[in-house]
């Protein structure tokens, strides 16, 4: 039973990382840009939950979504749009700059001390079924993962903006030559990644109610590692990669002795380097694909 419990918990953590990976992959798809600022969206959502802690829960949640989506769209408009067409190195540096700038804002506004956002702490209660004890947040993560992944796929496959996003992801210039509006497609990708970040904020504050300036960064780095390992240029492989890394880190966190788990990040990155040397397009990419160089 204990193993089953650990596996279910790990699946839930995997779902959370998969959502972060989807956000990264959506933006990467249309912009060929790894958006390091994605983590700051999650942090922003979490601080908004802290700031609105005395308002009705529904209001807090709505504000969290508005903050994350608005910030995502604003970052694109202010920082990335003027750089469109610039070299990938330039835009990559820009995402770092945005991430550091926002982190500085969190430090100044909220100090390095953690702020508590425990609005949804009720989800930490357990539901018992036989000898299985599941926290509600685990169940919520599973449901949110399935619903949002399904929703993302539906948007991409069934809507016009989704079709435009898929076309732009495979050949942006050809899409534009057909009249696809670059601004709209990119804004949609950022808005969707902001929406996903809001969900991650909500769920993450349940497990980790203490919000610090690096709150979102840690998850995002790990999810990014997963997405790149899986293959960030495809939604499916990026999602699977994000899921796997969340799943594995949850299992390892349970199993490894503390002395070893301190080194877990180092080992993770070592594995990343090795995998990328051998399979630059990602572990889950189709055989014969040589790398992400479609910029």
């Amino acid at each position: 039973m204990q193993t089953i419990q650990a596996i279910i918990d790990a699946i839930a953590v995997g779902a959370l990382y998969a959502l972060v990976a989807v956000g990264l992959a959506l933006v990467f798809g249309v912009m060929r840009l790894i958006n390091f600022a994605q983590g700051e969206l999650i942090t922003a959502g979490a601080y908004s939950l802290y700031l609105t802690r005395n308002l009705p829960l529904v209001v807090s949640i709505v504000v969290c979504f508005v903050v994350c989506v608005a910030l995502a769209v604003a970052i694109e408009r202010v920082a990335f749009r003027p750089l469109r067409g610039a070299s990938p190195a330039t835009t990559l540096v820009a995402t770092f700059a945005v991430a550091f700038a926002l982190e500085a804002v969190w430090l100044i506004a909220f100090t390095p001390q953690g702020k508590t956002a425990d609005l949804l702490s009720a989800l930490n209660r357990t539901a018992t079924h036989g000898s299985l004890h599941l926290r509600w947040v685990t169940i919520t993560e599973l449901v949110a993962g399935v619903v949002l992944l399904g929703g993302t796929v539906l948007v991409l496959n069934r809507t016009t903006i989704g079709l435009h996003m898929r076309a732009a992801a495979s050949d942006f210039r050809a899409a534009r030559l057909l009249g696809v509006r670059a601004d709209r497609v990119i804004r949609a990708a950022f808005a969707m990644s902001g929406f996903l970040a809001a969900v991650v904020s909500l769920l993450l504050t349940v497990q980790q109610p203490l919000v610090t300036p690096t709150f979102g960064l840690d998850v995002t780095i790990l999810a990014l590692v997963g997405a790149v390992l899986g293959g960030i240029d495809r939604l499916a492989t990026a999602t699977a990669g994000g899921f796997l890394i969340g799943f594995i880190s949850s299992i390892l966190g349970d199993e490894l002795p503390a002395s070893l788990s301190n080194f877990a990040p180092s080992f993770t990155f070592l594995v990343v380097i090795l995998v990328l040397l051998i399979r630059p397009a990602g572990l889950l990419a189709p055989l014969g694909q040589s790398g992400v160089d479609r910029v």
Partner: protein
Amino acid sequence: MLELDRVEARYGAISVVRGVSLTVAGGEIVGLIGPNGAGKTTTLLTIMGEVPCAGGVVRLRGKAISGLPTEATVRRGIALVPEGRHIFANLTVAENLRLGLAGRQSRDGLDADMDWIHGLFPVVGQFRERPAGALSGGQQQQLAIARAMIAAPTVLLLDEPSLGLAPSVIDTVLGALSDIRARGVAILLVEQRAQLIAGFADRTHVLSNGRIRMSLTPDEAQDTDRMIAAYLA
């Protein structure tokens, strides 16, 4: 309909299109031929606003459109069938067609246009749900033209549509262009090989090194190959 007036374009410091002037009226096919690297593709991309117009002006129905972003140019009624077709291989044929709607101004008459396009290119209807990458080269070219026509353009630009196609398929494609012309669309047809469009186009301009070196009537164009060979030598 479409008018280029001493249009110039450059990549960095290198001047590639150097004062090209030409006009295409509705219901006309105008040929633009010339050797590899002459600047044909760049001319078309400049019309689309994809390459900045560095001098001169592009007019559509008398109004200057140079300087508009590509997406806006398409919406004004200019469609390009690009060199190499640029079909979205991983999308279905139907999805590729639907992308053509991005450049369409209004949905009015869409059903009738769809019927007409399916009549013109039956393969497009036949393989609706297939990935476009599974089509043959000729079928992809037909899809590319069909997709451009979904936008209901008044000006259609084609960049070497015959490239890599078998002669029978080229006849199908050129036949479709005649039908499109009959609808009153202004067509600017870029080709490398003169004999393909000689006698088919209402006028053919010969581009070399970014300049129009000569312009031929259909009669003159019968003998084009020799004339061009003589001229470029």
